[in-house]
């Protein structure tokens, strides 16, 4: 009966109830929408970061990432490869030679990062082939073709077919070494660093040039089964310290990006608490208005035998009914807003966040657990909002309420 009474009481002032429910519902929509967009943005950024060059994980010789020393190649490449290939979800790997170089054209010279790849391996890992905007992608792991970033090509006034000289330091003697390449294509990844200062050449050619035959600096990997954070579902087997190599996930390679994705939950929790606290105050106000309007009636209810605890529960039940109604409205509105943005997305293409340039529109990414968590949060705060009015009812003397009858 108390539930029935609570539900019907709720609808005695329809306008007020609907407005209050809308406030809660809009709060819920805001939380669900922001959460799904954050999740979508995180997914997008992680995908952009791991799809471009980094992959999901990389193996390097210890110290290579800090020093970029050409001599620091992966130790015992065969054993290392065997170790990596043991992972059941490994879907692609690319062995790379990486070195700092100078690129010279007739228009000038620019410092660049040279990447020696096997285009067939790299095709399954990064998106250089899809990023070609002029000319062609590399056709083999040997030869004298080169592709480079669009901004670099503008600086050096280059077009496909032109010849270029790459100068670097060979690993054997530490002497300068040069190689002549022909520009086969120009890529545009959208990431300024890559487009401004990266050249990609056949791996074997670069190995020969640097006197690194059979050696590589980096193995980048992709995995087919990932957790929601974008790391391999089955953790990578750790390398033995004596191997002289390190195996790092993207979370360690780009800690700022990882931190940002992990901060999302905390940010959302803080935002949720602040938002719902504000909403709670509004709900408390609404419930108090209802209480004062029906004070005499509560006096009657108490005087005919309803205990203070039952009367207080009546107020809490009203809040729960309001909460459930609001949540249903809020979830319906959330479904509409989320599905709308799931169709159209939000265009942040080209914007750089935490070192990652967004390449695609952001689409909301929904975690079903949030559709339980946020409604519970809404109802929870609605119940908290009812505590004060419920306490007032609990301690209210029926005679005081009966004396408040409107004349």
């Amino acid at each position, binding site marked *: *009966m108390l539930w*029935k*009474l609570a539900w*019907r*009481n709720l609808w*005695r002032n329809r306008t007020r109830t609907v407005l209050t429910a809308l406030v809660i519902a809009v709060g819920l929509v805001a939380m669900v929408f922001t959460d799904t967009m954050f999740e979508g943005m995180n997914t997008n950024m992680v995908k952009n970061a791991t799809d471009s060059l980094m992959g999901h994980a990389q193996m390097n010789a210890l110290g290579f990432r800090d020093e970029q020393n050409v001599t620091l190649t992966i130790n015992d490449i065969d054993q290392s490869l065997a170790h990596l290939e043991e992972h059941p979800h490994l879907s692609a790997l690319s062995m790379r030679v990486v070195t700092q170089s100078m690129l010279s054209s007739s228009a000038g010279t620019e410092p660049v990062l040279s990447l020696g790849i096997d285009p067939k391996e790299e095709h399954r890992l990064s998106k250089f082939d899809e990023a070609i905007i002029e000319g062609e992608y590399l056709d083999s792991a040997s030869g004298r073709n080169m592709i480079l970033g669009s901004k670099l090509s503008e600086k050096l006034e280059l077009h496909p077919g032109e010849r270029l000289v790459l100068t670097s330091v060979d690993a054997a003697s530490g002497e300068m070494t040069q190689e002549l390449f022909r520009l086969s294509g120009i890529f545009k990844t959208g990431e300024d660093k890559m487009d401004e200062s990266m050249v990609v050449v056949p791996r074997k050619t670069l190995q020969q040039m640097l006197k690194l035959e059979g050696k590589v600096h980096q193995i980048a990997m992709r995995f087919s089964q990932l957790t929601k954070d974008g790391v391999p579902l089955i953790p990578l087997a750790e390398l033995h310290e004596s191997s002289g190599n390190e195996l790092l996930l993207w979370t360690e390679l780009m800690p700022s990006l990882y931190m940002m994705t992990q901060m999302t939950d905390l940010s959302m929790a803080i935002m949720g608490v602040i938002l719902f606290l504000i909403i709670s105050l509004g709900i408390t106000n609404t419930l108090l208005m209802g209480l004062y309007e029906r004070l*005499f*009636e509560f006096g*009657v*209810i*108490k*005087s*005919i*035998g*309803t*205990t*203070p*605890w*039952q009367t207080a529960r009546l107020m809490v039940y009203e809040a729960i009914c309001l909460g459930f109604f609001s949540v249903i409205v809020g979830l319906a509105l959330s479904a509409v807003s989320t599905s709308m943005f799931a169709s159209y997305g939000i265009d942040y293409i080209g914007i750089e966040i935490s070192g990652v340039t967004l390449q695609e529109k952001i689409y909301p990414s929904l975690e079903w657990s949030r559709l339980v968590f946020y409604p519970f949060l809404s109802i929870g705060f609605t119940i908290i909002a009812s505590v004060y009015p419920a306490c007032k009812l609990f*301690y209210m*003397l*029926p*005679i005081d309420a*009966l004396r408040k*009858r409107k004349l």
Partner: protein
Amino acid sequence: MTETLIAANNLTKTFGEGETEIYALRNVNLEIKRGDFAAIVGPSGSGKTTLLNILCGLDKLSSGDIQVSGRSLKEMNGSELSRFRLEHIGLVFQAYNLIPVLTVLENIEYVMLLQKVPAEERRKRVQNFLAKLGLEGKEDRFPAELSGGQQQRVAIARAMVSHPDIILADEPTANLDSEKGGQLLEMMKQFNKELSMTFVFSTHDPQIMEQAKRIVTLSDGQIVKDESRK
């Protein structure tokens, strides 16, 4: 010997403090016995409503004591007083005071639900009272859809259906015309006779005064006359 339901000893109730202190009741001694059909009469401001409120534990005493089944109301906390009213008292207010969002049936059932009376028994009692009070067919109406007389009959049904020891009615006929008031009084008299139900009214209504078996007259918060009639 007739059982004493409520014994009030030296009831005093004051409002305000110091120079503004007003005595609503002054050293009132009253015993309500089972089967009483008593009217508390007196001019406005004589303390009738205050006395009823105190007898049912709605209002607090300034001094004195009320004993119910050997227990003092002063010793009871809010929940115990609610439980006391639920189990022993049926209240009828001047302005009906039904719960507007509950139907006639639900209003009458409400107290029994609090008493945890089984559903079948509840329905039986409600139907019985609806028939006795001429409210058949109005079970699903809301109070706003009833006339004043019908609402007061529902209020009486609500007060009586839980089988309380005593019905305290504060000017129950004040908002009714004399015909409807007379009908209601007849009904209550019948319940008093047939079910030995105890009624205590505060009233100005000459009809009630005429029918009452006992008249307690209050003046300036004091009982000036307490007469029983055959």
